[in-house]
Every structure is written in structure tokens, then in C-alpha cells.
């Protein structure tokens, strides 16, 4: 139990600013994606094992609550990927540039790139939810 507490307080209390936040965000997004992925493999397997259950899962994914979850999922996938590329780039090509300043700058850039990639996707997903769940035509009926 003590290791759990030490690790968690370390996660919360370490004051590494951008480097620390990107570490945390990388973990949270990664854990979020693997949780969804496990559920997703099972629900797609229903297509073969129990087609009726697949349709029930699909109806669940079409609800507004799950729709919001999917929008968050897309952000997770983009951030985790862009941040992974950032780490791999410095590791493989510019190991001499692992300075604190550079890390802070590149972390902020990573977040901006992720948001730029995510916004159009999020907009279109919101549009789909409004259109199909509420009959509100936001853009191009």
C-alpha cells in the first residue's frame, strides 16, 4: 500500500512543469485508449460470435454520452501519437537537445499540434451527434 501512496503522491506533487504534465497526459491518454481498445475488440468480435449483441453495442456507441467519450478518445489518440513522435525524434535524431527549455517548448508545440488535428474531427463528431440524436442541423444536413 505504501508504494501506491508514494507513487501517486509523486505523480501529483512532482513539479516538473511541462515535462511532468506531458508524462502524465501520455499515461492518461494511453490508459484511456487501451481501456477502450479492450472493449472495442470484444464488441467487434460480437459480429462473429453474437451479431445481435454487436447491434446493441452499436446503439450504445450512438448515444450522446458515448459520443462525447469518442470525441475524447480521438484527442487521446492524437496526443499520444504526436507526443510519442516527439519523444522518438529527440531520442533518435537529436539526443543532444534534451534540455529543459527545449522539452518545455516542444511539449507546448505537441499540445498545439494535437489540438489542431483534433478540432476538425471533434467539430464533425459534434455535428453528427446533434444531427442524429437531436435532429439539429449544424452544418450540411
Amino acid at each position, binding site marked *: 500500500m505504501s*508504494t501506491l501512496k508514494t507513487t501517486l503522491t509523486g505523480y501529483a506533487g512532482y513539479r516538473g512543469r511541462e515535462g511532468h504534465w506531458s508524462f502524465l497526459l501520455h*499515461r492518461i491518454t*494511453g490508459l484511456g485508449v487501451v481501456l477502450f*481498445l*479492450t472493449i472495442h475488440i470484444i464488441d467487434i468480435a460480437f459480429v*462473429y460470435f453474437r451479431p445481435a449483441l454487436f447491434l446493441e453495442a*452499436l446503439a450504445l456507441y450512438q448515444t450522446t454520452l458515448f459520443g462525447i467519450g469518442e470525441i475524447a478518445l480521438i484527442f487521446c489518440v492524437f496526443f499520444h*501519437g504526436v507526443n510519442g513522435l516527439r519523444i522518438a525524434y529527440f531520442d533518435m535524431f537529436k539526443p543532444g537537445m534534451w534540455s529543459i527549455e527545449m522539452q518545455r517548448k516542444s511539449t507546448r508545440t505537441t499540445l498545439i499540434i494535437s489540438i489542431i488535428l483534433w478540432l476538425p*474531427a471533434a467539430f464533425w463528431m459534434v455535428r453528427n451527434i446533434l444531427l442524429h440524436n437531436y435532429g439539429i442541423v449544424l452544418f450540411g444536413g
Partner: protein
Amino acid sequence: MAATTETVRRVKVKPNYEMIAWKWMRYSAFALIPLVWIHAILQDVVVGVHAMDLGYVAERWASIFWRVFDALLLGFAFAHGVNGLRQVLNDFIHGERGRKILNWGLFIFWLVVFLIGAIALIGGVNQQFPLE
């Protein structure tokens, strides 16, 4: 101040299990960038969950390209994810015994879910055609 000299020493280290796992985390990461991004954008944004049914999956899996694509996704993404989960849990579990249980537990979890996905992917859409 005395001049400093720099010596670069290269040491060949025999790769152990953790190093191989780390390398494959990176290889799979590079594969997953196009695989996951294309998959997520196509299914969640371009097509959207509201336009899906059994017929959609049947149509997609009728193409060998998408079946191979999905097989690569299943293989790389889930292994990358479960190994990532293992790395996170290693922060909390330090004992030799605990890590052994963790490694085997996660391996069995990975294998079971992977096999469920693989069987479904090979089996295809299990319904009489034409679909309702």
C-alpha cells in the same frame, strides 16, 4: 581551467527481455501512427457510428485490404497497449513475485482478448446473406 577531454565509449550489451520489449514498443508505435489515425478518422469521423450496421462491417471485411489492415491493428495496437499498461503497473509493483504475477497475468489477458479478436476477424460476419 584545465582542458577537458571527451571519450566516447561504445559498449555492446546483450539485449535482455525488457530491452526487446522496449524496442518493439517503438516499432509498433511507428506502425500505429498511420494505422490508428486512419482507422479512427475513417470510422469515427468520416463514416461515423450512426452510419454503421452489420452490413457495413460485412462490406468492409469483404475487402482483403481492410481485413489485413484490421489484423495489423489488432496485432500492434493491443500488444502496445497491454505492454504500456505493464509499464504503468511496474511503477506500483516492485517485488519480484509481484512482477512475475503481473507479467503472466497481463500475458494471459493479452492472449485471450487477442484470440477473441483474431477468431472474429478470420470468421467474418456470422449472419445469413443478404443481411436484413
